């Protein structure tokens, strides 16, 4: 139980620090919600009136305490730009898009990278290995948003496999939704696939040199059995950690890819809200992302214990 309590306390401290940091940083950047919204119509009187409505006439500590008081109760307040919507409503509408994107990306990473990592080490220096190596270097070197643009161009505009920006609402057409999301998910996944494959390869190679592999071979096991029955399981654990770490990057990657594929997800909401200085929305999303990352790391910790019970930290 002690372990879980420790995790919980560190979780609360982390979230609180994230909240304070993003609150402070938001004060440093120029402009505020009222000025951003009024644009060239911004007159001192209009700005003052709107600021008052947003509660910006109060001092910084008071605002933070007010915000924290609401946030603890799950009330993140109202959006300053989308005046008719609460932050919770806004996020509720965007969250499924980002979660689907991140989820599909992680599944793709696991489905592609792990088998590929094992297969290529079976014949080091062979054709399959060389092709994989070359293409992995390429997808790792090109940033995911560039790959997103390339994928849109090749599959969307040239091959017409999907309509660029033709996002469909899952409530209207679920298969259409998944079909469209596949392309942004590939864009997010590709660079991470490359990283995972490389990581997997080094792990598998390291394991292959170990004594138990020689013993297994000596016992007459086929290469396939040695690979999947022995090496795979032993090289899996560091890879789980690695995939866990990647989840945070997948979230970050999704934010960028949502811009490229025009997805109405959390990332686009975040970027739009920063541009609009919509503090309530930005703060809530930052907290959400931080929570998600910490949560995934906790799951990784737990998985660790399951795969190898000796890991009691």
């Amino acid at each position, binding site marked *: 139980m002690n372990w879980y309590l420790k995790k919980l306390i560190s979780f609360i401290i982390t979230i609180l620090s994230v909240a304070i940091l993003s609150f402070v940083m938001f004060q440093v950047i120029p402009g505020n919600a009222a000025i951003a919204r009024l644009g*060239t119509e911004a007159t001192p009187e209009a700005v003052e009136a*709107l600021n008052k409505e947003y509660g910006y006439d109060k001092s910084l500590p008071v605002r933070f305490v007010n915000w924290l008081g609401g946030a603890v109760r799950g009330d993140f307040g109202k959006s300053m730009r989308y005046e008719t919507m609460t932050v919770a409503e806004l996020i509720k509408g965007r969250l499924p898009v980002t979660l689907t994107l991140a989820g599909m990306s992680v599944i793709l990473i696991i489905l592609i990278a792990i088998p590929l990592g094992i297969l290529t080490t079976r014949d080091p220096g062979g054709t399959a290995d060389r092709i994989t190596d070359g293409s992995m270097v390429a997808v790792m070197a090109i940033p995911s948003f560039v790959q997103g643009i390339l994928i849109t161009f090749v599959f969307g505009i040239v091959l017409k496999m999907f309509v660029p*920006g033709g996002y469909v609402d899952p409530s209207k057409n679920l298969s259409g939704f998944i079909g469209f999301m596949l392309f942004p998910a590939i864009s997010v996944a590709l660079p991470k696939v490359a990283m995972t494959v490389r990581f997997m390869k080094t792990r598998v190679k390291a394991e292959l040199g170990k004594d138990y592999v020689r013993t297994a071979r000596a016992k007459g096991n086929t290469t396939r059995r040695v690979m999947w029955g022995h090496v795979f399981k032993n090289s899996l654990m560091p890879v789980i950690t690695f995939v866990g770490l990647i989840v945070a990057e997948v979230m970050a990657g999704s934010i960028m890819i949502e811009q490229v594929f025009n997805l109405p997800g959390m990332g686009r909401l975040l970027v739009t809200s920063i541009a609009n200085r919509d503090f309530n929305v930005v703060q809530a999303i930052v907290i959400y992302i931080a929570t998600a990352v910490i949560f995934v790391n906790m799951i990784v910790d737990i998985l660790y214990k399951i795969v190898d019970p000796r890991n009691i930290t």
Partner: protein
Amino acid sequence: MKRKVFFMMLLAAMTALCACTSGTNGGNNGSDKVYYGGNITIGITQDLDSLDPHKAVAAGTKEVLYNIFEGLIKVTKDGEFAPAVAESYTISEDGKEYDFVLRKNVRFHNGKTVTAEDVIYSLKRVAGMLETEEPDVSKIAAFSIISDITKTDNGVKVTLTEPNTELIGYFTSSIIPCDYADQATAPVGTGPFKFVSYSALQNIIVAKNEDYYIKGVPYLDQVTFKICANTDAAFMELMGGGIDILPYLTNDQANQLKGKMDVVDGTMNLVQALFLNNAVAPFDNLKVRQAICYAINRQEIINLVAGGKGVIIGTNMFPSFSKYYDETLVDAYPYNVDKAKELLKEAGYPDGFSFTITIPSNYEFHVRTGEVIVEQLKKVGIKAEIKLVEWASWISDVYVGRDYETTIIGLDSKMAPSDVLRFYPTTASKNFVNYFNNDFDALFEKAQKAVNEDEKAGYYKQLEKKLTEDAVSAYLQSPAQLVAINKDLGGYCFYPIYVQDMSTIYFKTEPPKQNDQ
């Protein structure tokens, strides 16, 4: 789906009236068939800031809401005022009373007939005259001189505390029902399209208003304004066929579309300039400002940035506002490197100086203009450096805070000459160039109060001349707007204000059947 086919004659009359684009080269007006019905998608790159027309302030929102709402009057594509909810209006001799006769049987999208009470409520709301103040309603400052709005036998009468004949341009402000509480979520107006749905970051959908008081308008059944993350994403969608109309293309994008889509151009009615902070050294020196004007080759900018489209200006006024525009000012500072160098020497900067140009990064057009200017100024020894800032920072630091050296931006305005020049009176909160000139202020007041049109135009031309003589800023161009349109569509119109009018758009071929929605 109802479909009617109209032939040449009727259309010839209509397109001639509105002189809109109709085909590949815009020259074959009248040869199009016009099909009723069909759904189209138009790309916009800004989410809406409010669905309530009185709360919306972003230009990108107003250009969408234009299709749902109407004012007492409307601006035509020639910059004239046409009756809308009002059937006609008269302005009294002394310029203190505006009398509007309401059109009969104009109905809101919820079926209610527009009454004088609705009009009075709408006008009072934007004038800040309602008893319950709404802080987020964007007030029309010019309406502060309204003393009373009353009901007459056939309409409403607006009384002013002081004469002002230019106020008419502000009566384009939307008329909304007086007893309707859901304006911000399910807006109701009188325009050619009615609101269907809105989802943040995705789209706003409007459908044909079958009850519109002009018969036969609009043509389309449904229009989706698709909110795109940025111009690049929007352009990708356009290339992929997901978008039928995309305004504000760059010259490069337009070139890429050749053959695939129709690209039409019209004027933007913006004053694009290298605005100089007149309160900051060395721009507080007239000779320095003049030197910069001489050192900038405006035609080269237009050629390089806008593919040769755009009109050179020499002052803060749009050429299309011809009645008030003094075209002789264009040649006040012809491109002349020697002259610029000489002026710099006289001003005490024989070796030039360095400064920064702060440009909002979301406006690629202004950024590219800045790049050209940097190169041009090098020739006279001035070292300019571009500083890109985010839009919200620009508004806060440059526009409101006036903490900058120079900036490039396009200023738009309502259909009143005083609104175009609202940035320059000494006390104006929008005077971000810090231009302080008592003569200008006095003349500006005279111009606004003048009742006689010729006299008024004369005053405004004098004001423009002052801006040019004082070289307040380096005025560059009234940029062209490039719009990509699906080859199957016709009827796109350019207006002297920021709008995307979908009521004139029609299919030239049988509209495709829609499978979703």
